[in-house]
C-alpha cells in the first residue's frame, strides 16, 4: 500500500512499514544520522536524525530512523528546534571524540553544519576521551550481518563501552567489516588484536584491559 506524506513541504510516496528516514532518502531529502545503517535494524541511539512530525495537529519530535510512515503525516527535517537538538547533541559528544583539539570523523562535518561549539563543554568533561560515541554500528553489524557477536557493550550509563570479546575476536583478523562503519574512525585506528592475547572478558570488566 502506498502512503503519502509530506516531508519539508514536499509530497512523498512511501511503502507501508517504511520509516520516515527511508522515505526521505528515497525522495532525495537528506537527514543527518550517526547510528543509522541501511543493513541494520533501527536503533535510535544518536538522536541526530530527530525530526518534527505533525499528526492531527499535534507536533512531536521523533527519531526518523524508527518512526513509521503514516498517511497524511507532516514531517519537518529542519526547524529551529531540530537544529538546536542536533547542535547540542554534537556539543555533548564533542569532548569524547576530541583528538588534538579537533573532533573526529563525521562529528566535525556535523559541528560545522549546525554551528556547534565543540569546546562548549570541554572544560567540564572529566572522563578520558574514548573517541567512541556508542552508536553501536560495529556491535550491531557484527551481530546482525556478520553473525559473529565478537563485539558488544559492557557497562551502563556513562560507563558504557563497546568492547571486543577476546574469545570471539579471532574472527576479526580476517573480517574487519566494522572498520568502515565507525563514524569517528575509532576502530581502525585503535584496534590492535595483539592486546587481546591472554585476556578474557572478565579481565576487561575488571579493568585490566
Amino acid at each position, binding site marked *: 500500500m502506498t502512503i503519502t506524506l509530506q516531508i519539508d513541504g514536499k509530497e512523498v510516496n512511501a511503502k507501508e512499514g517504511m520509516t520516515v528516514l527511508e522515505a526521505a532518502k528515497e525522495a532525495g531529502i537528506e537527514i543527518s544520522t550517526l547510528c543509522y545503517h541501511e543493513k541494520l535494524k533501527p536503533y*535510535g541511539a544518536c538522536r541526530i536524525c*530527530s525530526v518534527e512530525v505533525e499528526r492531527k495537529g499535534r507536533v512531536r519530535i521523533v527519531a526518523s530512523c524508527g518512526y*513509521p510512515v503514516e498517511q497524511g503525516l507532516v514531517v519537518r527535517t529542519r526547524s529551529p528546534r531540530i537544529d538546536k537538538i542536533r547542535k*547540542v*547533541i554534537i556539543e555533548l559528544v564533542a569532548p569524547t571524540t576530541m583528538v588534538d583539539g579537533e573532533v573526529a570523523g563525521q562529528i566535525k562535518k556535523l559541528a560545522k553544519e549546525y554551528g556547534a561549539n565543540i569546546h562548549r563543554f570541554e572544560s567540564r568533561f*572529566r572522563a578520558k576521551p574514548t573517541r567512541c560515541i556508542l552508536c553501536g554500528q560495529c556491535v550491531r553489524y557484527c551481530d546482525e550481518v556478520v553473525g559473529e557477536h565478537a563485539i558488544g557493550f559492557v557497562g*551502563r550509563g556513562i560507563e558504557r563501552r563497546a568492547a571486543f570479546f577476546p574469545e570471539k575476536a579471532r574472527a576479526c583478523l580476517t573480517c574487519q567489516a566494522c572498520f568502515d562503519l565507525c563514524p569517528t574512525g575509532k576502530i581502525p585506528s585503535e584496534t590492535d588484536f595483539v592486546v587481546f592475547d591472554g585476556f578474557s572478558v572478565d579481565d576487561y570488566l575488571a579493568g585490566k584491559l
Partner: protein
Amino acid sequence: MTSKRISSPEGLGQLRKGILSKRDPNKLIISICTMSVCGQSRGSVDVCKRFKDEIRHAGLENKVDIRETGCQGFCEREPVVIIFPEGIYYVNVKPDDVPEIISTTLVKRELVERLLYTDPTTGKKGAKESDISFYKNQMRIVFGNNRYINPRYIDDYIALGGYSALSRALLQMTPAQVLEEIKKSNLRGRGGGGFPTGIKWETTRNAPGEPKYVIVNCDEGDPGAYMDRSLMEGNPHGVLEGLVIGAYAIGSQEGFIYVRQEYPIAYENAIQAVKQAEEYGFLGENILGSGFDFKVKVHLGAGAFVSGESTALMSAIEGKVGEPKMKYIHTAVSGIKGRPSCLNNVETWANVPPIINKGAEWFNSIGTDRSKGTKIFSLVGKVNNTGLVEVPMGMTLRRLIYDIGGGIPKGKKFKAVQTGGPSGGVIPEQHLDTPIDFDELTKLGSMMGSGGTVVMDEDTCMVDTARYFISFCCEESCGKCIPCREGLRMLREILTDICEGKGQEGDIEAIEDIAEVMQDASLCALGTTAANPALTTLKYFRDEYEAHIKEKRCPAKACKALTSYYIDPEKCTACMICFKNCPTEAIHGGKGIIHWIEQEKCIKCNTCFEVCPPRFSAVRRISGEPLPPPPAPGTKAIREKKR
C-alpha cells in the same frame, strides 16, 4: 494427594465459610508487620518472637493469635502492634514491652498508656488507628487490607472476600463487560504515566497476534518510594487477582510478575502467592469452572532502574539486557517477542478487584475530575509522620504533609516537596494548596509519578537536591542514547561544580539547553524526564542557583564547599561539648577558654552545630560572607552565674 482446587463460585463461597468457621471470633489477634523490610529493620521480628514466647509461657495460645503482616503504613513508628478486635494501636514497641502488653491488654483488657501514639501537635494520645491523624485522613482501598493479612497465607485473603471479584468477573461477566467496567472506572496507570488502563487493555485485546501477555511491573526504584514493594510484600493476592481479571478481559493466557532483585520479600511472597493460587485453582486451567486458562511466572529482575521502562522490562523478560527500545509502536501492540503485551504497575492491578466488586460508579465517586480513585504515597524526608499513605486523588499537598504527615520536625520551615521521584520535580510553598492528581502536578513542572513524596525543609539546598537526583539518573541511565547519557553526565558535572563554588557564568543557560534537548530527543522516558529536578529547582529557586554561582553562597548553608563553621565568642560559654565531639580536633580552646574552629582542619561534618546546646546556639554556619577572626588565644568565657 487430595486436590484443593475450587471449581465453581459456590466452592469459593464454601471455602470462605469454612475458613471463617474455624476462626474463633472471640480470639484476640495481634497484628505485627514482620513481612516488610522496614518493619524488620526496626526490630519487629524480635517483638513478634517475644510475643510468641510469652504467649506460650502464659498458656494463652487458645485465646490469642499472632498475625504476621506486611507493611501497615506508619513506618516511622514501627514496630507497631495492633490488637484486634478493638484495633488497639501500640507504637515503637520493644521486646521488653511485650510482657506488659500481655498482662495488661490481653489479660486485664486495659491499655498500656505509654505505648499509645501521642500526637506531636495536640499532645493527645490515641488508642486506635481512627484516633491518629496519620490514619484519620486516609482512605485505604488498596492498602488497608495489609494489616489483616499474612501474605504467605492465602486463606487470610479469602477470609476478607478475596478472589470474589475474580469469581464475579469470570462467571457473571463477559471479557467485554469487564473491560467496559474498567474503562468506565477511569482507572489510570499508577506507575506514573497515568495512561487510561481500560484503553491500554483494549489496545492489547484488539491487537493482532497470539499469545498475548499481561505483566505486573514491580520494578519500583524511585529514591524514597516503596508503595509497590509494600503491596507486593503485604498483599500479593490482591495484585494477582487483579492480574487474572485483566488477563480474562484482554484474552491473555500467560502473565508475568516482574519483581526487582532488591525486593527479596516481595519476590518470595509473589512466588508463594502464585503457588497457593494454583493450588486453589485461581490460576491454571479452567479457573473456577469458567473455562478460562491462565498461568503466571514470577520474573526476578537483574537490578537496573531503567528496567521499569516498558520496552526494557520486556527485553529483560525475554532474557536480553534490560535496555529501552524505540516504541513508536506501543508495547500494548508489540511487546514481549513482538506480541501484544499489557504492562501495568502493581498498584494499578491491585485497584482492579475493588472496582469489579464495587463497580465503576463507586470508583468514580472518589477523586478528581480526571483522576479517579485513591493513590498511595510514600511520605518521606523532613516530615514528622513518615510512612505509606493512601488518600483520595485531589487531596492537597498541604493536607498530605501537615494533616497526615504532621508537619516539619523540629519547628523548621517547609521549603519544597519533591514528587514523582527523579522524573518529577520540586514544588515550593506557594503551590502547597494544589490538589494532587495526574494533571495538576504536571502543570507545575513536576508530576504525581508513582507516589514518591520527599519533603524538604529550610536546611535543604535546592541545587544540591537537583544534583542528587541528576546523579541518581546518571548512574541509572542505560547509556544507549546520547542526550540522556551525555546530557546527564554534563548536568551532573555542572551542578556539582555549582555546589562546590565552581559555577561559571552561562551555567544556568547550559543546564536549560541540555535539559531542553534531553526532554525533546531522548529515547525513553527516563531521559525525557530526568532533567525535571534541575528544571523545577531552576523555575522556583533560581535565586539559589545565582547565589551559588555569583556570590559563592549557599543560602541553605548545606553545600559544604560554600559553608564555614564559626563559634560566636559572645555566645560561647566554653562548655567543651563541641570541643569533645569534633572528630578532627579542629576545635581549640579549653575549659573556661572560648572555643574556636581551625578552618583548615574542619571537615564541615555539622557535629558542632548539632551538639551545641540550643540555649547557647554559639555555633553558626556562614556562607558567602567573610569569616570573623577567631578570638585572641586564651580568651576567657564569661559564664552566666548558675541559677
